[in-house]
C-alpha cells in the first residue's frame, strides 16, 4: 500500500466530497442486511416481522443444541482442510513450474488455472458430477466434494505464491546455490521461508472459499453428506427451523471477522491476491 502521501490530486473539493459521501452511503447499505441477520437472531417473532416485537436468547440456545448444524459444521471444516491441503501442493508446484520460464503454452496453463473460477459453478459442478457418476461410475461422497473444491482452490494459492515470487525475485536462492547449497537445501532454507506468509494467505483464502461453497457442492455431494451451506439451504424454507438457521447465519457473519483479522496479521497486504476469491 505504498501510495504517495500527498492526496492533493487534481480533483475539486466538491468531487472528492461527493465520492466520499457515495462511498460511505454504499458501504453503509452493504452492512444493513448483515445487521438485520444479527438482530433477527434475537427476534421473538419467528417469522421475523419488522420491527421486532421483542428480543430473546431462546433461538441461540436451540441452535447450540442442534446436532444437524454441528455435524454439518464438522463436515465443512474437514472438506475445507482437505481441499486446502491439495490446493497448497498443486498451487505451489504450478507457481514454481511457471516461474522464470517462458515456453509455448505458458499462457494456456495460466488460463487453465483460472478456468475453474472463471466458469460458473454449475458448469464445474455438473462436469464433476457427470464425470464421477456417468463416466467413472463412482458414488458421490465427501471425497468427490474435496476433489471438486480443490480444483477451484488451486488458483488462490497459485496467485499468492506467484505474486511473492515476482516481488522477491531469485537472487536469494541464487546466492544460496552459489554458496554450495543443493536444490533441496535451498528450497528448505530459502524458498519455503520466503513463501511462508503467502502460503498462509493462500491457504486462508482457499479454506474460506471451500467452507462457503454451495453451488459446486450441491452437485458433487451425496444426499448423506451435509456441509454447513447445504444444511442451511435445506433448512431455509422450513418454517420451524428458520430461527435456528438465522442464528447459524448470525454466527457466520460474526465469524467472517476472523479471516480478516488473520489476513491483517499475516502481512498487512490484504489486497494481494484476495481478488481471486469467490
Amino acid at each position, binding site marked *: *500500500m505504498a*501510495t*504517495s502521501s500527498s*492526496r492533493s*490530486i*487534481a*480533483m*475539486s473539493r466538491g*468531487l472528492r466530497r461527493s*465520492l*466520499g459521501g*457515495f*462511498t460511505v452511503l454504499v*458501504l453503509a447499505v452493504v*452492512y*444493513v*442486511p*448483515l445487521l*438485520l*441477520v444479527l438482530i433477527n437472531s434475537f427476534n421473538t417473532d419467528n417469522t*421475523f416481522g419488522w420491527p421486532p416485537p421483542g428480543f430473546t436468547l431462546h433461538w441461540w440456545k436451540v441452535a447450540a443444541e442442534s446436532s444437524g448444524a454441528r455435524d454439518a459444521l464438522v463436515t465443512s471444516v474437514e472438506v475445507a482442510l482437505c481441499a486446502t491441503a*491439495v490446493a497448497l501442493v*498443486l*498451487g505451489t*508446484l*504450478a507457481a514454481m*513450474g511457471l516461474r522464470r520460464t517462458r515456453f509455448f503454452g505458458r499462457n494456456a*496453463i495460466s*488460463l*487453465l488455472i483460472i478456468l475453474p473460477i*472463471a*466458469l*460458473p*459453478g454449475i*458448469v*464445474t459442478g*455438473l*462436469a464433476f*458430477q457427470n*464425470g464421477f457418476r456417468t*463416466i467413472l461410475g463412482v458414488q458421490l461422497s465427501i471425497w468427490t466434494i474435496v476433489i471438486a473444491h*480443490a*480444483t477451484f482452490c*488451486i488458483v488462490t494459492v497459485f496467485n499468492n505464491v506467484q505474486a511473492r515470487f515476482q516481488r522477491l525475485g531469485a537472487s536469494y536462492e541464487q546466492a544460496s546455490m552459489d554458496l554450495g547449497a543443493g536444490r533441496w537445501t535451498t528450497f528448505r532454507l530459502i524458498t519455503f521461508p520466503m513463501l511462508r506468509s503467502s502460503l498462509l494467505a493462500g491457504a486462508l483464502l482457499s479454506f474460506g472459499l471451500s467452507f*462457503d461453497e*454451495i453451488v459446486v457442492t450441491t*452437485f458433487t455431494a451425496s444426499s448423506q453428506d451435509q456441509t454447513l*451451506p447445504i444444511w442451511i439451504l435445506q433448512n*431455509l424454507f422450513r418454517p420451524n427451523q428458520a430461527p435456528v438457521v*438465522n442464528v447459524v*447465519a448470525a454466527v*457466520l*457473519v460474526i465469524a467472517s*471477522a476472523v*479471516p*480478516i483479522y488473520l489476513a491483517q496479521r499475516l502481512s498487512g497486504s*490484504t*489486497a494481494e491476491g*484476495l*481478488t481471486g476469491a469467490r
Partner: protein
Amino acid sequence: MIDRRPGLRVGLLLTPPMLWLGVAYLGALAALLVTSLWTQNDFTGSIERAWTLENFRTLFTVDVYRTITLRTIGIAALVTVIDVVLAFPIALYMAKVASPRLQRILVISVLTPLWASYLVKAYAWRGMLSADGPIAWIARPFGLDTPGYGLPAVVITLSYLWLPYMILPVYAGLERLPDSLFEASADLGAGAWTTLRRVVFPMAFPAVVAGSIFTFSLSMGDYIAVKIVGGTGQLLGNVVYDNQGAANNLPFAAAVATVPIVVMLAYLTAVRRTGALENL
C-alpha cells in the same frame, strides 16, 4: 540431471497440477460436452450413449429455454453494469482520495462482507425484501412497497453479492495509476471530469473488465439466490440443477450447461486483448 535440464525440472513441477487440471478437470468438461450429445431413456432413466443433437434442438427451439437463456444473459449484464456504476466511485475514492489510514479501513470494510457466507447474504436479502421486512416497513409510509420476491429481487441480491468482486480489482487498478498522471492532465488544462473520462477510465478499463469477469460469470451460473429471492423466476442455473440427478435428464442438463461455457469463453476471448486476465 535436474540441474542440467531446466525443461525436465519444469516438467516435473508442472506434471501434478497439469494431471489434476489438464486431465481430470478438462477431461470432465469434455465429458460434459460428450454427454450433452447423448440421450436419456424416458422409461428406464438410464443414459443411452447414442449420438444425437436432440438436446440442443430442444434448447434452441422450445420458447421457454430461449427466454430463460436471454433472461440470464440480460440479468448477468445488468448486474455487471450496476456493480461497475457502484464500484467505480468507491474504488476511486479508496485509491486516490482517502488517506492511507482511511484506505486501510475501507479495504477491510469492503473485504469483510466478502468473507461473510454467500448463503447468509442471499438469506439476508430474503429478510430485507419480505412482506413484513424492513424495506416494506420503510417504504409503506411513502405509499410504496417492497419489490417482493422475483427477478428485481434477484438483480438486487446478485449486485449486492458480487459488488466486492468489482470494487477490489478496480481499486487495485486505480491504485497503480501514478498521481502524476492526474497532475499532468490538470496541467494540460483538463478539468476533473475530462481527466476522469479521458485518462482515468481508459487506464482503469482492464481492471473493470477483470471485475466484470467475476460479476458476469457468477451471475450466469447462479441458481441459489434465484431459489431464495427469485420467487417463481428461473435462470439457466435452475434448469441445469432441476435436470441433473438420477431421476432427471443429465444429458439435457449438460446441453444447457454448455451455454454459460460458450458465453464465458467468448467473453474471455473478447477481453483477452485488454489485458484484463493479468488483473484477476
